[in-house]
């Protein structure tokens, strides 16, 4: 039943930017050509760059979570219901007759779901929570949304349809969980107040007064 695991854009994480907190640790491996997933043809060639891209490049700078609204509340980020697309597009006359939008309205009028192809897929035995990572990086650490989503999803704001650009293997996840991250004074995260240190003793506070600890690395955190 763990269908949620197979849903939509699945990953998002703790990665690249963390290195700024852990100057002594080697930076995570850079994305290589090999990490790039296959180009995937979608029923509608959805232009992420148009919606999320920077204004100077013709983008709308829409927050990722405006459409992927489940990400902060759920394991999965979710593909928005068509109703969401229509909500805006019914009053955007200028593009109403473009091929992609026409196609969108065809689905809507027929009340048919769009059969998107999944771009980021994890095995069913991995339980990845979008909510946890978003609460941690966006809401607790106040990192910019696109940066945080980008840790795992790459630079989506410059893509048309999304394409996987990180490896998303276990080693790759761990490469970030092994880094020292700043944590709250009690050692907790905002969700469930789970302590970041597992060896029973609090890590030392560094010269700057910031307590750092590694990401969770119990098997059971991801393999329930």
């Amino acid at each position, binding site marked *: 039943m763990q269908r949620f695991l197979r849903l939509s854009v699945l990953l998002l994480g703790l990665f690249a930017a963390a290195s700024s907190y852990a100057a002594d640790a080697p930076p995570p491996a850079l994305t290589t050509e090999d990490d790039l997933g296959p180009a995937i043809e979608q029923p509608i060639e959805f232009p992420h760059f148009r919606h999320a891209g920077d204004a100077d490049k013709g983008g709308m700078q829409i927050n990722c979570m405006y459409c992927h609204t489940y990400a902060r509340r759920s394991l999965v980020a979710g593909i928005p219901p068509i109703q969401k697309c229509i909500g805006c597009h019914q009053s955007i006359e200028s593009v109403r007759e473009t091929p992609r939008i026409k196609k969108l309205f065809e689905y809507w009028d027929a009340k048919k779901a769009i059969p998107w*192809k999944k771009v980021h*897929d994890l095995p069913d035995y991995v339980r990845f929570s979008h909510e946890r990572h978003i609460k941690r990086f966006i809401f607790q650490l106040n990192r910019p949304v696109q940066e945080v989503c980008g840790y795992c999803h790459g630079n989506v704001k410059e893509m048309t349809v999304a394409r996987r650009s990180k490896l998303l293997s276990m080693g790759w996840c761990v490469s970030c969980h092994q880094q020292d991250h700043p944590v709250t004074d009690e050692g907790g995260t905002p969700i469930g107040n789970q302590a970041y240190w597992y060896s029973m003793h609090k890590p030392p506070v560094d010269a700057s007064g910031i307590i750092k600890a590694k990401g969770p690395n119990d098997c059971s955190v991801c393999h329930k």
Partner: protein
Amino acid sequence: MMNSGSVKHLAGHPFDRRDFLKVLGWGGAAVALSGCGNGSVEDGKETVVSYVETNDYMIPSISVYFNSTCAQCDAGCSITGRIREGRVLKLEGNPNSAINRGKTCGLGQAGVQHHYNPDRVREPLLRNGDQGEAITWEKAYALIAEKLNGVSGEEIAFLTGGVSGHLKVLLGNYLDSFGSKNHFVYEAVGPAVLRAANKKSYGVEMPRFNINKAKVVLSFGADFLGAWISPVHFSQQYAQFRKGVDGQRGVLVQIESKMTLTGANADRWLVVRPGTEGILALGIINALGTATGDIAAAVKGYDKARVSKDTGVSAEQIDKIVALLKERTPSLVLAGSAAEGYAHGSQNAAAINLLNQVLGNVGKTVEAAAVVPFPQMAPATGNTFALKTLNDGLNAGKYKVLFSYAANPVFTAPGAMKFKDNLAKAGFKVAFTHYLDETAMQADLVLPLDSALEDWGTQVPEYMAEGAQINIQQPLMEKLHANTRGMGDILLALIKLRRADDYKKYDDYYAYLRAAVLQNKGALGGGVADDDTFWNETLSKGIIKLASAAHALSGKAGAAGLSLPAPSAIDAQYPLQLIPSVNASLRDGRNTNQPWLQESPDPLTTIVWDSWVEIHPRKAAELGIVEGDIVEVTGKNGSIKVQAYLFPGIHPDAISIPLGRGHEALGRYAKGYGVNPFQILDMVFDKETGELALHETRVKVSKTGSRVIVVKDEGPAGGSQMGKKIAARLPSDKVKLSEEVYYVG
């Protein structure tokens, strides 16, 4: 697995509870996990389907919960379904119901397997020789109209299981529309005799039994923890009873000829000669010595010596029971199905009820039940008497059109009744059904029903726990199959063919139900709430609790008319009494196609997926039978072959075979597993009510020569392993099954 094609649009009432159900959610198409390579496994291969439209509370991976009512038996437990991505995953009890207070039984848990069952009928089927041909609903309705054309009311019969609520009202109106009074209600294992006896003893058919208030419970074969009336409710009362009233832990004494689950939990389990429960009850009244007047006179002859000889319960045990009853009040005496199942079942039950009266329990532990103030919605109950009447009518060729719903008499009627043959005499047979069960297999037209988790309805439980309540049944998810219909919707469509004007304002059964409930908003506790608020609250609670008066209870029936026959002599040709046992999961066999129920071991024998015959080890030794022997159980009305299980919890002159298995149809998990003891029952009926005396069948047992390994959870040695050395552990490839030693009693 869902696909995009099953995603539907909302019906156009925003934020209505129904609408969400019309949207099927997230589903991936076929999944093939191709191994554990690096990184993502199936990029670009799976489809991820989003909602077209959805309510805000529908968040993928987060469950939502809706209340409904369990339809696995008639106890009417309220359930809460967990739904995720538009699929119902798990059922729990609804804590707000006084009946089950947040719990369900194993049978209730299996409700999801009824819903997702692969053997559900998916299209209306019209008989064409041996085949069922899929037809449209329009054609099916037209056909029914055509067959009813020119047929008088008397020539139409409607057979159902227990029905209540608005469905019963609608059904009544439908029958009215062609002037038919032929509604036959048939529950194969319902407590029909008890109802009649209770009516006489207490003035009501189904009072409340307050097990939790009793300090001692004397149960004559009432399996209240297993399958009797409202087992989840009684189990919870039992837990309170065991904790004790005023610090006194309740004591349970179970008296029966075959140990039930309740018997296995009792402090004292007494085996009684089958059919002599009433005699024992009168013996206890006599030994108590507190009765006066006609009761004293009626029990005068039942002195300990005689009672002990008749029943097989020793005088010493009778003394102990009497001492216990004297020492602890209030007590509660229950007449269960084991006591009812005889030609003198009514008398047995009356004698047992009399014991309650003598002990002063009436009004204390036997209390009046609350009544739903809408008598037209009260449950219609019935048993074999109704079936027999129908059967006689069929045999006489009285019925041109027969409808059947929620009953499977071809499976549950005693074979000697020849119901199947008589059924063939009905002109046109319509079965409303979920599965192609034995009865549907005989039908000319099979109409597939929505599952209980897809359908709308109201249910009024026969056994009311505290206040009166009406239970709401509502869909927990969108229909799985496009061409099934709710029973209410079908009835509405049919009645529209006859009384279009009265019913045309209802688009569907949902609209009918909503209108019917709102019409009585005041009486249903709606107060001044506006319609939408009240309706939505009702659906969200899943229960309508009613302020209502209780039935009047009388406890002065006395002993008039009480007469118990002497125990019957042993029949030389058929020396054993057959006890067809009602087991907590399978009951009368309607749910046998739910594999969890086949797979969950019988609580007493631990046997799975098969039938067995329980034989007392002493009797077995006498007959040279060991566990696993295939024996032939023969009675006047046929024989069945079944594996033997040696069971000390049974009277040596009785054997027991559980009901519910031995299907010849119904589905892949039911067909061909086990045997059906209904088929060999003797046609003996209770003298007063005319109901089938389920325990009156006499049989003999003979070996067939073959032997099998009984598939069960307990070790091969069963109970005999106790106190012995632990068997040497062998790797499974070293075990030689042919050399295994069996328990030989």
